[in-house]
C-alpha cells in the first residue's frame, strides 16, 4: 500500500485529505506543522508528501527544503496544498523542491487524479 504524509495545521483539512485518499486505498500519516512533517518524513519512507504552506513553527517551503536534504527524500513527490495562489509563492515552492501546487479548497477527484499520477 502506498504511503502518503499530509502536513497541515488545520485538522479539518487533514481529515478531508485522509478521507479522500484512504477511500482510494492509500495509507495516510498526519503531521500538524513543518517541524512535525520533517520528523515523520525522516522516520519513515513515504511515496508522496502533501503539505500546506502557512503553518506555525515551520512553514511548508522551509519544510520542503529540509526534506529534500534528507536521505532518500530527494525525489519524493511533494504537493503543496494551500490557500495561497500568488506567483511568487509558487516560485518559492518550486525552488524549494515542490512537485506541484493545489489551491484550497481542493476537488476530491482532482486530488485523487494528481496523486495517482505522481504515485505509481
Amino acid at each position, binding site marked *: 500500500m502506498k504511503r502518503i504524509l499530509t502536513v*497541515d495545521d*488545520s*485538522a*479539518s*483539512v487533514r*481529515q*478531508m485529505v485522509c*478521507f*479522500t485518499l484512504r*477511500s482510494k486505498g492509500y495509507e495516510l500519516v498526519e503531521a500538524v506543522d513543518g517541524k512535525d512533517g520533517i520528523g515523520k518524513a525522516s522516520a519513515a519512507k513515504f511515496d508522496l508528501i502533501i503539505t500546506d*504552506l*502557512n503553518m506555525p513553527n515551520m512553514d511548508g517551503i522551509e519544510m520542503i527544503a529540509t526534506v529534500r536534504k534528507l536521505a532518500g527524500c530527494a525525489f519524493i513527490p511533494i504537493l503543496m496544498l*494551500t*490557500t*495561497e*495562489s*500568488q506567483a511568487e509563492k*509558487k516560485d518559492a515552492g*518550486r525552488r524549494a523542491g*515542490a*512537485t*506541484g*501546487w*493545489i*489551491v*484550497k*479548497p*481542493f*476537488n*476530491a*477527484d*482532482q*486530488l485523487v*487524479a*494528481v496523486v495517482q*499520477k*505522481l504515485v505509481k
Partner: protein
Amino acid sequence: MNTGLPRMTSMLDWVARLENVTGKLQALACTTETQVRSVAKVFEDMAGHTSTILKTAAALVGCVEKENIAAVMPKVQILGAAARRFIGDRLQASAGILKTVDTEVNLLQQLSVVSRNQEAIAVQIKALSVLTNIEVAHLGAVGAGFQYLANELADFSRAVLSDTRELTNHAENRRHAIEETRRVLSAELPRQREQLARIEADLGTALKLVDSGLSELSRTPAQFKVCVEDVARQIAGVVAAIQAHDITRQQIEHVQAAFALIAARMRTAEDPGKDPEKKDASELSQAYAGLTIQVYQLRTIEGTVASWAAQIRTCMNGILTVSTSEVVGIGPAVLEQEREVSSQLARIELLEGESQAYSARIERNLGGLSNLMELVTEHVQRSKSIRDRLRLLTFNSIIEASRLGTQANAILAIAKCIKEVASEWNGITDQSANAMERIATLVTETSGAMKMFSGAGSETLREAQAQTSAALDNLRNVAAAAAGHAQEMKLATDKMQSKAGEVKNSGDVLHASFGNLDEVLCEVEFVQQHLESHQPGLKHRYDATAVERMFSGSYTTELERQVLRAALAGTALPPPPTFAGNSVELF
C-alpha cells in the same frame, strides 16, 4: 452634538470594545474548528455509505447490462409464436385426420356391402353345389365327372364365407377404432381451440408484464445510481466546503491581528505626548480604514459560511430524497413476472407432453389401416382367383353338359347359373379392387396427416422452449441479484439518511456559532460610527497604499487580498470561495 449614539467618554473605551470582539473571534475560531471537525466526521461516514451504495448500484447496473436482459423479451415472444403455431398446426392436422376418418367410415360401409354381397353369392354357390350333387346322383355313372364341379363349388362357398367373415370382423374392429378416434378428435378439437385461446390471452398478459418489468429493471437501478452519484458530487462539494473553513479560520486570525493593530493606532491617537492635531487625524483615519476592511472581511466570512450552510443543506436534501423503494421493489416484481412466464412455459410443456401422448394414441388407433389394406388386397386376389376358377368351371360344365346332351340339361342350367354368379362375382371383385385403391390413397393421406400432427412445430417449439428457459434462468438470476443488491443499498441508504439528522444538528450549531459574527460586526460598526462622529471627514483622509501595506502583510489567501482591495475601493464583496475545486499545477 447629539448623534443618537451612546456617548463614548474616551478612545480607550472603544479600544476596549475592539479587544472584547477580538476575544469573541478567538472563541468563535476555537468553537467552530471543533464543530467543523464534527461535521466532517459525519460526512466522512456518509461518503463511506455513498461509496458502498454506488459500488453496489454499479454492480447491479453492470449485471443487468452484462446479462443482456433486453434479449429475454424477444425469446419469450418467439416462444409465444412457436406455441401458437404448434397448437394451430395441431388443430389443422386434427381436422385433416378427422377428414380421413370420415372417408374411412364411408369406405368401411362400402366394404360391408361388398362383404354382404359376397356372402350372398357364397350362399348361392353352396346351393348350386347341393344341386350339382343331386344331379350327379341322378345321372349316376354318366354324371361322375360333375362331382368335381360340386366339390369345387362347395370349396368356393366355404372359402368365400371364411374370407368375407374375416374381412367383416376386421372391418368391424376397425370401425370401433375409427369411432373412438372420431370421438377423441371431436372432443379434442374444441379443447385444443380453448387451450390456444387461453395460451394466447395468458401469454399476452405475461408478455406485457415482462416487458414492463424488464424496462424497469433496465431503468430503475441506473436511475438510482445517477441519483446517488449526484449525492456523491454534493458530498464532494461539502468536502470542499469543509476545507473552506481553513480559509475562514485564517481570515478570522488576520482580523484578530488587524484589530490589535487598529487598537494600537487608536491608543497612539490618544497619546497626549504627540502632536494632537496631525497625529490624531492620521492614526485615526488609518484605524477607520482598517475597521472598514475588517467589516468587509467579516462580511465575506459570513458569505462563505452561508455558502457552506447552503452546500450542506443541498446535500442533505439530496440524501433525504434518495429513495430505495423503487429499486427494492424491482427485483421481487421481476421475479414475480418471471414466475408468471415460467408457469406459461410449464403449461406449454405440459400441453406438448399431452399432445405427444394423444398423438401416440391416435397413431395406435389409425395404425390398423395398412393391415386392413393388406387384408383387402389378399381378399381381392382370392376373389379374382375364384372368379377365374368359376369361369373355367362354367366353361367346362357347359362343354361337358353339351356333350351329354339332354340328360344333362339340369347340369347345363346349373352351369348357366354359375356363369351368372361368376359375372356377379366379377362385379363385386371390381368393387373390392376399387375399395383397395381407395384404402391405399387413404393410407397415404392418413400417414401425411399423422406426420403433420405428430411433428407439427415440435422442433421449433422445443428450441423456443430451451431458449426461453435459458433466458428466464438469466432473468431470474439478475432479478435475484437485483433484490439482493437493492437490500444492501437500502441498508446503506438508511444508514446514510439516519446520519442526516446528525449533520443537520451539527450544521445548525455551526451556523449558530457563526451567527456571533453579527454581534462582532455591530460592535465594530459602532466603534466606526463613533470615530467618525469624533473626527468628521475621517474616512476620506487615509493613505490607501499605507493602509494596504499595513494590513495585507499577514494575508495568506487571495480572497483576503481581494476583499481588502474591494473595501478600499468601496466596491462589492468578492464572491465566496468556490467548492468546485481549484486548478492543479504540476511543476
